[in-house]
């Protein structure tokens, strides 16, 4: 059963991560366009650092780093009179109350917490990619539109809200749909983050089973399980491609671009 639930896990992850990454991307793009210099530096370095390094490094890094970061914050807040250093040799020690999740919490809390850090990690990494796409899209909105908005006496914030944002989606969509494909193809990496996803179950269930441990002994079936996963992902990307093509057609309808004038 776990194997079938795991497909649900993947779909839920996609459903949560996609909007979260968009939010991160929007924030990053706005920061990169900001007039305030430190904020601009922050936005630009966020985009370029995440994009210049293998994504899997970030996946492995953030899961531990976020976990320790949360615990450290809680530690500062909950146990102010703790005098020992947090890093003792090879151990990361925080006070009992700051542990996340609590040591006596039931199993599902641990799983949800692990899933939550995984989603956050995905959102941070893909947020940078989305930020890059949205940054390009905001710059691609025709200058004349912005100037017209200024001429009508709109403030910068109003221009951004009423003119730039509604128009940028068309320019952003090809990049975002590409990103969606990439996101789908990155979901098996969940396995590395310790979430029990389809890769985990395919390895578990496919492995050689002896009659001693199970009612359904079989040989090494992992090849077939992974073949099934491959087909699943192929079908998923193919369907997404078709759907996104339709969305693009609808969005470009009536726009002053090559796609819209057809």
């Amino acid at each position, binding site marked *: 059963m776990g194997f079938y639930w795991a497909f649900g896990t993947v779909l839920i992850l996609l459903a949560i991560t996609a909007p979260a990454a968009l939010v991160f991307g929007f924030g990053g793009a706005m920061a990169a366009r900001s007039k305030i210099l430190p904020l601009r530096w922050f936005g630009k370095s966020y985009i370029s*650092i995440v*994009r*210049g*390094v*293998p*994504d*899997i*490094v970030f996946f*492995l*890094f953030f899961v*531990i*780093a976020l976990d*320790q970061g949360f615990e450290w914050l809680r530690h500062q807040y909950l146990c102010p009179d703790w005098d020992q250093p947090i*890093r003792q*040799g*090879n*151990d*990361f020690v925080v006070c009992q109350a700051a542990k996340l999740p609590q040591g006596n919490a039931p199993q599902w809390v641990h799983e949800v917490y692990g899933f939550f850090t995984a989603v956050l990690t995905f959102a941070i990494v893909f947020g940078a*990619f989305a930020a*890059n796409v949205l940054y390009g899209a905001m710059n691609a909105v025709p200058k004349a539109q912005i100037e017209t908005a200024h001429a009508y006496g709109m403030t910068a914030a109003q221009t951004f809200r009423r003119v730039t944002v509604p128009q940028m989606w068309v320019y952003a969509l090809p*990049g975002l749909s*590409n990103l969606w494909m*990439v996101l*789908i*193809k*990155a*979901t*098996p*990496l969940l*396995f*590395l983050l310790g979430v029990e996803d389809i*890769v985990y179950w*395919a*390895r578990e269930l*496919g492995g050689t089973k002896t009659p001693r441990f199970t009612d359904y002994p079989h040989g*090494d079936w*992992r*090849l077939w399980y*992974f*073949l099934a*996963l*491959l087909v699943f*992902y*192929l079908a998923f*990307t*193919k369907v997404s491609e078709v759907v996104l093509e339709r969305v693009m057609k609808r969005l470009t309808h009536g726009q002053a671009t090559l796609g819209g004038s057809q």
Partner: protein
Amino acid sequence: MSCWDTVQAYAFRSLGYGERLLPRDDFTICQQMTLIGSGLIWNIYFGVLALIAGFFLANALAMAKASANPWLRKPANGFILVFRGSPLFIQFFLAYFLFLNLKQSTGGFAWLTSAWAGALVVLFLNTAAYSAEILYGALRSVPKGEVEAADAYGMAGWTRFRRVVWPTMLRLAWPAYTNEAIFLFHATTLVFFSGFPAFQQKGDALYYASYFADKTFNPFIPYPIVAVYFIILTLALIGVFGLVNKYLNRHLPQEQRRKLRFRPQIIR
């Protein structure tokens, strides 16, 4: 143990030379830098070989995809769809178990189950599929005028392809191909996390980095080291590809030459 001793002991650890045991406690920055750098040898090995071999297959595939003959076009399309439409991670797993089955059923092919050959095959096929799509796109945007000019000079068939179509195609595809190369190198980090075992702890850069992170429970040192190494590797790659780009565009007037820009867009 001074830092130089550490370098001597571990510089080629990933290939199996030098000290056998990995450091167990009291990890120094020097040890981490050396071992992770030593692991980088594997990343470069996978990346360079897969890139060179994949380039030839990608050209063949792009030609097949553009051909009018359905017996060539259909298989090429299918190959590109399968390798571009599914995650590389799953491909690694599938290939590993496929090779394992092959080994058990035929007795031969034992070398394919080890990372140096098996993962290389997967990376080679994968990059060939991605590059073929890029080259195919470039092939379709070769200016008509150039082909007509070639016709006017009396060139046809192979001569026309070799002298006119192929160089232009390569020139147009090169920026995107640079991107692909960068991501191929990034993808090499997946090898030792996907079924392929690291025999005698001979792993790549990320393998050692996660070893250190597991042991010290401190991700803030090993992963940034990997990141720095990869940024250097990426910059070197851009440099090399930039030189080739310059060579490909050498006949164009100065202002028409497009500079290579680092534009990572796709990961797999």
